[in-house]
C-alpha cells in the first residue's frame, strides 16, 4: 500500500507538470507537423512512383512520427531525473518514507503516461492526412504508445539513474536517440536495405514500436496486401518483444535507483 502510494505520487507530479505546461504541448506539435507536411509532402511524389500511387507517403510516415513524439517525450521525462537531482528536488523524494523501487516505478508510469498524452496530441493530425481510425484502433494505439514509452522511459532511467549532471545529455541525443530513431524504419521501409542495416534495425527496440504502430494505425487506410509488405512482423510479435524489453530495462532501472550510498 505504501509502495503504491509512492508510485502514484511520483506519477501524479509528472502528469501535473505536463498538463501545466500547455505552451510546450502545443510547441511539441511543430516537429511532427514539419515532418508530415514538409518532409512527407516533399517525398510523396518520389515515393508514390515506387508503389504506383497506391501509397500516400505521409500515411506511411505517420506511425513513425507518432513513435517519435512518444520516444522523445519518454527519454526527456527520464532525463528529468538528472534535472531534479541538479536542482535538488530529487532529495525531497529520496528522503521520504517511500521506497526507491516505488520512485523508479512511479517515474516509469509518469513517463509512459505523458508520452502517451503527447502521442495523443499528434494522433489528432491523423484524419488530416486521410488515416481512418475507429475507437478500437485508437485504444490499441494508446496501448502501443504506453508500451513503447515504458521501454523508452526505463531505458532512459538506466542512463539517468547515476548521472549527476546534464552535460552528457547532448551526447546521448546525438549518438543514441537519433540512430535508434533512424534505424527504426520510421521514415523508410526496411525492406530491401543492406544487410547491416537490417541487423541494426533488428536490435533497435524502436523498430518494434514503429512496426506495430504501422500495422495497427494504417489498418483501415492501406490495402491489406500493401500493409503486409510495409510491416516486418505480426503485431503480436512486436508487442511480445517490447514487453520483454520493458521488463529487461525496468529491472536494472529499479536496481540502479535503489542503490543507497
Amino acid at each position, binding site marked *: 500500500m*505504501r509502495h503504491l502510494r509512492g508510485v502514484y*505520487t511520483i506519477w501524479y507530479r509528472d502528469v501535473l507538470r505536463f498538463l501545466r505546461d500547455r505552451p510546450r504541448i502545443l510547441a511539441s506539435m511543430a516537429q511532427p507537423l514539419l515532418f508530415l507536411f514538409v518532409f512527407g509532402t516533399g517525398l510523396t511524389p518520389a515515393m508514390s512512383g515506387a508503389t504506383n500511387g497506391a501509397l500516400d507517403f505521409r500515411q506511411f510516415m505517420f506511425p513513425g512520427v507518432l513513435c517519435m513524439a512518444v520516444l522523445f517525450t519518454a527519454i526527456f521525462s527520464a532525463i528529468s531525473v538528472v534535472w531534479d537531482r541538479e536542482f535538488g*528536488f530529487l532529495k*525531497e523524494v529520496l*528522503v*521520504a*518514507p517511500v521506497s526507491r523501487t516505488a520512485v523508479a516505478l512511479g517515474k516509469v508510469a509518469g513517463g509512459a503516461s505523458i508520452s502517451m498524452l503527447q502521442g495523443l496530441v499528434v494522433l489528432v493530425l491523423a484524419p488530416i492526412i486521410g488515416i481512418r481510425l475507429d475507437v478500437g484502433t485508437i485504444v490499441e494505439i494508446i496501448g502501443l504508445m504506453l508500451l513503447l514509452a515504458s521501454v523508452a522511459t526505463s531505458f532512459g532511467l538506466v542512463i539517468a539513474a547515476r548521472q*549527476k549532471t546534464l552535460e552528457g545529455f547532448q551526447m546521448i541525443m546525438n549518438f543514441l536517440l537519433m540512430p535508434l530513431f533512424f534505424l527504426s524504419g520510421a521514415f523508410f521501409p526496411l525492406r530491401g536495405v543492406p544487410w547491416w542495416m537490417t541487423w541494426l534495425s533488428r536490435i533497435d527496440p524502436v523498430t518494434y514500436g514503429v512496426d506495430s504502430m504501422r500495422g495497427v494505425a494504417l489498418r483501415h487506410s492501406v490495402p491489406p496486401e500493401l500493409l503486409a509488405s510495409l510491416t516486418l512482423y505480426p503485431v503480436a510479435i512486436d508487442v511480445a518483444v517490447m514487453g520483454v524489453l520493458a521488463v529487461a530495462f525496468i529491472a536494472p532501472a529499479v536496481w540502479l535507483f535503489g542503490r*543507497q550510498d
Partner: protein
Amino acid sequence: MSAIEARKLVRRFGTFTAVDEVDFVVEAGEIFGFLGPNGAGKSTTIKLLCTMLKPTAGTAVVSGFDITRQPDRVRQSIGIIFQDPSLDDRLTGRENMRFHAMLYDVPRAAFVQRANELLAMVDLTDKANDLVRTYSGGMRRRLEIARGLLHQPKVLFLDEPTIGLDPQTRRHIWDYLTKLRRREGVTMFMTTHYMAEAEHCDRIAVIDHGKIVALDTPRNLKAMVGGDLITIRTSDNARTVTALIALHGIDIRATEDEALIIEIAQGDRFIPTMVDVLRAADPPIRIETISLSHPTLDDVFVKLTGHGIRTSEADTVQPLREMAQVWLGKKR
C-alpha cells in the same frame, strides 16, 4: 526520551573519515547546533541521521527508531530542511506542500488545515497559489520550512538553514524557527557555520575533522575561553586600580590610551558592584566610559581547533563558485 542519540557513529569515504566515532544526545524539545567549518563532517552527520547515508560503523536512534534497522520509521518521524533548495519550482507553493503530504501519507482533510496553518505561519498565504519559480530566496526557504513540518515530525533537521540569505531574511527565518519551537515543541538539530546563529541554540557541539571537540551551552563554551572584558576610563586610573584590586581576584591591565581592561567571569554582574565601589571612594572616582565585551563563539572555535572557521570564504566565494560550476555544466 531523548530525541537523538548517536552512538559511536562512523562514516568513511574510501580512506577519508568524515565522521569519526561521534557520540551525543539531543533532548526532546531542544535546539541543538552542530558548529564547524566546511568539510568538518556536519552535513555527513545530518545525512547519516536522516538515513540518506548508511554509517560505516556505529548507529543512532532518532525519535526512538534505529537509523540502520528502521530507516522508514525514522523518515516518517523527521522533517528535513536541506542546505540547497529542494522545491519543484514549476509547481505552486501549495502543490509542493500537497506533494509532500502525499509522500508522507498525510490524509487529505488534515492536509488542508495543516497546510493553511503552516503557510500562514511563514507568511506565504497570499503566495501559496503562485509558481515557486516566482518566489524570492527567503520565500523558498520559508516554504521549505513549512513543508518540512507538514507531517508533524518530532525532529526537524536543518542543514545550514540560512546559507546564502541576506541578514534581514536570516533574522526572519530565526523568528519563525523560535515561534515554531514555542508552538509545536519540535526538537531541532541544525548545522551552521554562522557563529551568530549558533547563539540561538540551547546547546552546541563543535565538530572539527569529524570529531566532536566540545559540547555545551553557548554560555559555558564561551566561559571556557576566559572571562568578559570590561574597558573603563576614569578620572583617576591609579586610585581605581587600588580600589578594585581590594575587591577580589581581578585581572586588571592598563592600555596605552589611558583605559583600563578588566577580565572577569561575569562582567555584566560585576559592573554594578564596580560602579558602587568607585562612587563610594573618597573622593568619589568619576567614570567616563564603560564598555563590556563577551568572548564570542569565534574565540571558542579558535581556542578549540587552533584555526578560525573561515566564514568569510564560505559566505561569499563558495556560492559563486558553485553557481559558476552549474552554469558551466562542470561536475561538482
